[in-house]
């Protein structure tokens, strides 16, 4: 069953320039779909459209179905109730995505109390449990901290915990690791993969990194200048690319692997959990 289905999504700028052109894809329940493309290809805009958070001066057409329900027809209020609760989001720059002057714990309880009829105490207890699931130590201390007191990797773990805590059906991860250093990147990715699998969530993973997508994705859609030029299962896309651009990407990847001396291409160095 498809959790999210995008049909003929187009986004135009105020000047009439086409930013995303007639793209359709679907995200199966419990699976990970990867939007792969260079920066400026419209990946992030697509994810914003799913959240209903496109800038007001952009014009959108097409349908976004969430569990069969057309999100475009929702009121602002019901759309808000879906964000966070049913669709969680993990951002690229975790330290910028957490409010700088509100303690982490408070941000967790604000989130939970916005969507569920629970007390702040209860919310914070759940949040602490979730923090230990993202492998943070000393969770009580983290709850009291502000985001600038944590390292980038810790912030991203907090971000992941925050996205997963309300048990959303779908998680959108927008380049969650590109701002982190390589070792932390590997840790975060394997953690994310493990948790998503464990909690049986679907994920829309947005990246420019072919390696990451081959590791995480069940299906891949390749985006270029606002258009999905090719999509299909990961094996198909990587094994038998049809579009010239995808072929180039794959060729570039094999070159990189060769130059690294033929290390295992499918997983970042440390996958053990």
């Amino acid at each position, binding site marked *: 069953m498809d959790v999210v289905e995008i049909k003929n999504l187009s986004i135009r700028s105020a000047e009439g320039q086409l930013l995303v052109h007639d793209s359709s894809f679907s995200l199966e329940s419990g699976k990970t779909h990867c939007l792969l493309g260079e920066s400026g290809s419209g990946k992030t805009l697509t994810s914003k459209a799913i959240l209903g958070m496109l800038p007001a001066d952009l014009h959108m057409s097409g349908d976004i179905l969430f569990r069969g329900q057309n999100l475009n027809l929702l009121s602002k209020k019901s759309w808000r109730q879906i964000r966070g609760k049913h669709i969680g989001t993990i951002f690229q720059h975790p330290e910028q995505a957490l409010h700088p002057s509100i303690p982490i714990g408070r941000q967790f309880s604000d989130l939970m109390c916005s*969507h569920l009829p629970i007390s702040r105490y209860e919310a914070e207890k759940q949040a602490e449990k979730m923090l230990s699931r993202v492998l943070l130590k000393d969770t009580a201390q983290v709850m009291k901290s502000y985001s600038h007191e944590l390292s980038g990797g810790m912030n991203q773990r907090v971000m992941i915990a925050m996205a997963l805590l309300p048990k959303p059906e779908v998680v959108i991860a927008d380049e969650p690791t590109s701002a982190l250093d390589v070792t932390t990147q590997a840790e975060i990715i394997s953690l994310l993969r493990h948790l998503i699998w464990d909690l049986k969530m679907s994920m829309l993973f947005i990246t420019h990194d072919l390696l990451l997508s081959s590791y995480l994705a069940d299906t891949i859609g390749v985006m270029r200048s606002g258009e999905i030029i090719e999509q299909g299962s990961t094996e198909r896309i990587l094994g038998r690319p049809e579009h010239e651009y995808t072929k180039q990407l794959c060729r570039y990847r094999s070159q990189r692997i060769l130059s690294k001396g033929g290390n295992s291409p499918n997983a970042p160095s440390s996958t053990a959990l």
Partner: protein
Amino acid sequence: MLRSIINRLLMLVLMFVLFSLFVFTLMRLAPGDPASMMLLEIGGGPEQSLVANLQEQWGLDQSFIQQYLVWVFQIFQGELGNSFMSGEPVVNEIMNRLEPTFRLISGSFLITVVFSIPIGIWLGLNEGSIPDRVVYSVTILGLSVPLYWLAILLMYTFGVLWPILPVVGSSSGLHYVLPITAISLVQSVYFIRMIRSYTIQYSKFFYIEAARARGLRPYIFYPSYLLRSMYIPVLTLVATSLPGFFGASIITETIYSFPGFSKYMLEAIYRRDFPVIQGSVLLVAAFIFVFNFVADILYYLADPRIHLDKQRWEI
């Protein structure tokens, strides 16, 4: 934290010293010496012996620095002298008139803040919408409305054409309606514009976008996320607006014959009543400087990035 407060405190003292030096210098530069001025005021002729006597009594024959130090010392003892006009101590004269002015300023201040913060935020969130464009164009016009003209127009409308409100004095609550309306209208225009632009600027911040993506309830999101992040610019706006409100109170008190401190000070300027002018400016300056100082302290409390005692720590 402590160090920044001490720094601010030193700055505060420095400001006081420089301002008092400025006041003192101008007082000495004033045309006509105070002794003959006072004798003239109380009706006597400027006879040489009397003038010399007074000059000696006030220490006017000493050097500039000495005089300044003596003067500062006197002020610290609370001796601001007596009014030339009434002969009463300046301190008492000012204290008797502070209450209506205080009510006027705090009333219009509250109304301005209470109305313009939500309006400004709402406009900023709906940037480019029709109400936003309309209100924004009105504020461009509003910035150019002279307060003194607006106050007179209000006075004419509600005092002459449609006489439902008292326009002279301060004896009842109703007397405050027009002055407070006039001041709040003019100040709100500025506040709304500034808060609108802060809202536009801060909603683009990533953590506000991210908070929105978490679907927070409006009553949590707006006060504790959006407004919280704008705390420092809004605080600056509020803190630096105090002199503006004070200037506005001089104009409105004069127009509505409001027996308050600001009007009294203006009258002291007409009559060249130096002790009163001196006492008033020092009081107002003290008030404004301390207000700014408090705002500075609030900055540090507002921004946790200043919490230096907690170090960045790793797993």
